[in-house]
């Protein structure tokens, strides 16, 4: 048997019948409705929570990135501004003659190195783009910059910050140049190379979450500082250059490895630089994933619990209703049946009673005819006539037997339970048979204990049982026999009455058959073979039992056990069994 078969409730395969609900449909309805009203809000709330949480986590990430970019931009701008301002200070504070003096310029470089750090060399260029003076590790005096792009831009804007480039020492540098206007609309330029190590330190010390990467690129997308994941200095990054914005921007994009990344960037003013911070979204969303798992887990557990409880409760309740309805139906059915049987019984009793009177008349008339023939000599020898009358008489007898069975049947249907005393019933029955006992000098002794409880039973049936048993005992005994009737309480629920005679007894082979209908050892002397089978049927009907012990020649002992409380489950019995048995 499969598991499904085992847990399948009783109502599942119940056939739909009149007056009984369709339980399977009811079950579906209950389960679906319950699940709908419990699961729908749950799932809705969970999804809403999921979305809200996801959104807030994402915006939190964006916000944090944006803040980091802003702060870093400020640091970078500050770094550049600081150095530009230093050069501006030098160019306006120092007399031109001192700038043109190599020793003076070297001392300025030394001071700058001490105060700010990062300065590698410094040079003075005149308005024609010629390097007039230089202090630093190389011999760069006399170089002409006039043709270079930066110089032209410098002239235009007044100051200039270059892209990062590899200097002669193969160290990344950038150049800061400031212009000093002279009264005669002439000018000169102070140009300093700054190594970007400080710059790099600044960025590499940033703690960027989510396996993040902070670096600077120029407007062409060339890396100005080393990057952890996007290449070395002066290499082009794989990401596209974000479009210009004055503010800090954060957006979601696709990284080099096609993974989702959060990109924060800011254009650094008055410089060719763009600060970029790139974070891996997956890493950042790790905490969210845990939360997500929790939400999913909660949802799964809730759904499972709701499912089990709903199924369990619905199945249990509907099964309960099914069983109740079944009981109700069977009670109704039983009532209908016993009503039917009762009316059938009344009908049978009526027919039997009514038929007995005309039968008696036929019997007497036939008897009279027979008398007339017997008493008159001319007919006395007419055997044919006598035979005809005998057939009439025996047919009447047969009808009488049928009527008696009908009556018995009717009597067996009506059960009229009342509380009664065994002693009283025994004496009533003995009163009935007392005269026969008297004539035949049979001594009957009755012993019923005084503390015998009253029993719930049908008086008529009990009388019939006792009558049959006493009759049987009388039939088995010769005159001057002895019958003992004793009653006792067997246990809390039952009592027993024993009828012991000292009659002819029952042989062992007959002992097992005596309760069978139509079994009789006295068929030749008028026994119908029905008495004990009726008795047996009655005792069983009353929820009792009957046992017999006997030894041939020494008598027999019948013991009837009866319940003290009547069994309420008295059923209408099979009409055929009743008619045949009774």
């Amino acid at each position, binding site marked *: 048997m499969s598991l499904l078969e085992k847990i399948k409730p009783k109502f599942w395969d119940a056939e739909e019948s009149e007056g009984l609900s369709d339980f399977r449909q009811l079950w579906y309805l209950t389960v679906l409705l319950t699940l709908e009203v419990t699961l729908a809000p749950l799932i809705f709330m969970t999804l809403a929570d999921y979305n809200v949480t996801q959104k807030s986590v994402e915006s939190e990430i964006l916000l944090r990135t944006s803040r980091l970019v802003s702060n870093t931009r400020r640091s970078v701008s500050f770094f550049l501004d600081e150095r530009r301002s230093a050069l501006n200070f030098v160019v306006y504070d120092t007399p031109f003659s001192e700038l043109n003096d190599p020793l003076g310029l070297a001392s300025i470089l030394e001071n700058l190195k001490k105060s700010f750090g990062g300065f590698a060399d410094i040079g003075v260029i005149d308005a024609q783009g010629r390097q007039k003076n230089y202090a630093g590790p190389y011999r760069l005096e006399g170089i002409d910059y006039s043709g270079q792009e930066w110089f032209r831009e410098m002239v235009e804007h007044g100051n200039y910050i270059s892209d990062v480039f590899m200097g002669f020492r193969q160290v990344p540098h950038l150049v800061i140049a400031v212009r000093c206007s002279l009264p005669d609309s002439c000018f000169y330029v102070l140009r300093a190379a700054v190594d970007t190590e400080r710059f790099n330190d600044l960025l590499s010390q940033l703690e960027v979450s989510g396996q993040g990467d902070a670096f600077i690129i120029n407007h062409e997308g060339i890396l100005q500082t080393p990057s952890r994941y996007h290449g070395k200095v002066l290499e082009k990054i794989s990401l596209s250059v974000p479009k210009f914005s004055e503010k800090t921007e954060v957006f979601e994009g696709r990284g080099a490895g096609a993974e989702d990344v959060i990109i924060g960037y800011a254009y650094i003013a008055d410089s060719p630089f763009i600060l970029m911070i790139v974070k891996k979204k997956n890493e950042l969303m790790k905490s969210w994933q845990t939360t997500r798992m929790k939400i999913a887990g909660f949802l799964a557990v809730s759904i499972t619990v709701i499912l089990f409880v709903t199924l369990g409760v619905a199945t249990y309740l509907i099964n309960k209703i099914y069983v109740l309805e079944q009981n109700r139906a069977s009670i109704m059915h039983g009532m209908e049946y016993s009503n039917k049987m009762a009316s059938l019984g009344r009908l049978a009793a009526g027919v039997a*009673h*009514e*038929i*007995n*009177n005309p*039968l*008696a*008349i*036929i*019997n*007497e*008339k036939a*008897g*009279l005819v027979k*008398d007339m023939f017997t*008493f008159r000599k001319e007919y006395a020898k007419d055997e044919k006539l006598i035979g005809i009358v005998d057939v009439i008489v025996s047919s*009447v*007898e047969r009808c*009488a037997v049928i*009527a*008696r069975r009908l*009556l018995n049947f009717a*009597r067996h249907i009506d059960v009229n339970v009342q509380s009664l005393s065994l002693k009283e019933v025994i004496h*009533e*029955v003995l*009163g*009935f048979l007392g*005269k026969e006992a008297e*004539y035949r000098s049979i001594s009957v002794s009755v012993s019923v204990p005084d503390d015998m409880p009253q029993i719930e039973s049908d*008086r*008529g049936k009990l*009388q*019939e049982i006792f*009558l049959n048993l006493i009759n049987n005992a009388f039939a088995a005994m010769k005159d001057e026999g002895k019958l003992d009737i004793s009653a006792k309480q067997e246990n809390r629920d039952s009592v027993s009455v024993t009828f012991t005679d000292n009659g002819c007894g029952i042989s062992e082979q007959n002992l097992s058959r005596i309760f069978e209908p139509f079994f009789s050892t006295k068929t030749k002397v008028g026994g119908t073979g029905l008495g004990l089978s009726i008795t047996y049927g009655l005792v069983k009907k009353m929820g009792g039992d009957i046992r017999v012990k006997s030894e041939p020649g020494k008598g027999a002992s019948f013991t009837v056990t009866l319940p003290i409380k009547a069994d309420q489950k008295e059923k209408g019995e099979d009409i055929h069994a009743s008619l045949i048995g009774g």
Partner: protein
Amino acid sequence: MSEKVLLVDDEHDFVETLAERMRARGMEVSATTSPIEALKKTETENYDAIILDLMMPEMDGLEALRILKEKNPDLQVILLTGQATVEKGVEAMKLGATDLMEKPADLKALTEKIRKARARKMIIVEKKTEERIKTIIGGKGW
């Protein structure tokens, strides 16, 4: 001496035929279909046995039995009925019926019961006579 019997049954055909057959067997039988008439008859006649039906339109057999026994407890009443049940039998016995037979009855068996009833009555009458004699003798101061 023949038995003197009173037959009471509302079925005319039945009582008459039964009476005729009983008479043929040497019994002195009066028959009536009315229990009220039967009650009257018992006031003037002395019957050895009264055969009484249980269900009669004029009066219920058990009721008739009760009145009969009230008037004369020595009366021997045999109930002959088509509606015999053990309960009715027990009730009848309580009221003092001598015997009960089911219709249709075998005449031989009925005759036997009448004879037994008569014997019982004789015994009772004898006993009573004896007692009366004793009382009388006692009263005379013997």
